[in-house]
């Protein structure tokens, strides 16, 4: 097993639990995505537990890079986020399991065994929001850029300046964003986007 998380206390707790199992062995711990890639090459673990938001390189990027090199590699995402976009991106990248931090250790072991055996482990709550994401329209790259600038507290005029476009164009992007996210105003759009994991803090 390889555990990847930038939060050392959490990482050591997970590693300690796994190490006490007779049928599991911890081979390494990493603090960011890039380190994870290096350690993966070195140890080739059967299952990797991966956090999503980390400095240097995030979890989704690391999963993608490792799976390109080792298509048989198996991943369980371990994260505080439960937004549908996060789950969607992680599954797209090739993760077979998804756990929310704060899970019971029985769940952790069950997930590891399931993923190791070649099946998926997606808790019901997670599966539900994944379905929601699959049926709802995603934002375009430009809309996402606009949304991030709204998040920074920028006005339409400032956004137009930053993206070298007109205020009118920005307004239509905003209308599209509100529609796609089913939001009444900008603040609600940001709240929904954060909750769904479309944007991050």
């Amino acid at each position, binding site marked *: 097993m390889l555990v990847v998380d930038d*939060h050392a206390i959490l990482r050591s707790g997970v590693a300690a639990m796994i190490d006490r199992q007779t049928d599991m062995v911890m081979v390494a711990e990493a603090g960011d995505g890039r380190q994870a890639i290096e350690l993966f090459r070195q140890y080739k673990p059967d299952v990797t537990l991966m956090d999503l938001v980390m400095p240097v390189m995030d979890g989704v990027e690391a999963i993608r890079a490792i799976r390109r090199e080792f298509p048989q590699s198996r991943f369980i995402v371990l994260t505080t986020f439960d937004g549908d976009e996060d789950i969607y991106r992680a599954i797209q990248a090739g993760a077979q399991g998804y756990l929310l*931090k*704060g899970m019971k250790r029985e769940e952790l072991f069950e997930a590891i065994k399931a993923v190791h055996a070649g099946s998926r482990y997606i808790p019901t709550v997670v599966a539900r929001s994944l379905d929601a994401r699959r049926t709802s329209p995603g934002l375009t790259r430009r809309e996402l850029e606009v949304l991030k600038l709204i*998040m920074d507290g920028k006005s339409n005029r400032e956004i137009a300046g930053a993206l070298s476009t007109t205020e009118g164009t920005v307004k239509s992007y905003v209308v599209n964003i509100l529609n796609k996210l089913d939001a009444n105003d900008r603040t609600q759009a940001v709240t929904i986007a954060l909750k769904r994991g479309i944007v991050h803090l």
Partner: protein
Amino acid sequence: MLSERIRIAREIHDTLAQGFAGISTQLEAGKEALFSSPHVAHEHLNLANLLARSCLEEARQYVWDLRHHVEGDDLASVLASMSRKLAAGLLLDFKVLGYPRPISETVESNLLRIAQEAIINAVKHAHARRIQVEICYGSQSLRLCVRDDGCGFDPQRAPAAEGHFGLLGMSERAKSIGGLLRLQTTLGKGTEIIVEVPVDNKL
């Protein structure tokens, strides 16, 4: 203000949510070891307890922040007033070097938290009489330095002892803003904590 709400949410995520996830994981690890190796379980419980206390401290500081962080105040003046409050009754030497300029809120709030932790450690654990806080605005980086004349400690020993535990948090904060934290301490000869963060001049 939307950006203020986002700042608050980010703080809660970075400190409290991370903290609770860590506490819960350490408690689970403690339960796992409870009967077979009680001493290991004890260590996990200790760590969970320390983390809970540090979260509580964060929450307190956070409330303090909300009351005192007036929009428009620059890092140096917020740092000065925070240092005065935390080091009340001690000799405080506060210095600003270079040309102060606005920096990003994330860098600012993380540096404030690091300074806060360092000063609290100097007061509570090192029993310092004199504390020096220095912020230096360089052309490409920002350097924060907190020095005390307290009892110092041996960084090799008791890694989970309270002061060291806070140290891990400080070092993680420094890393999260692309910075580096250096520590110099000798038993009986005080402690110095230096954080250097690259700063984008456009901010």
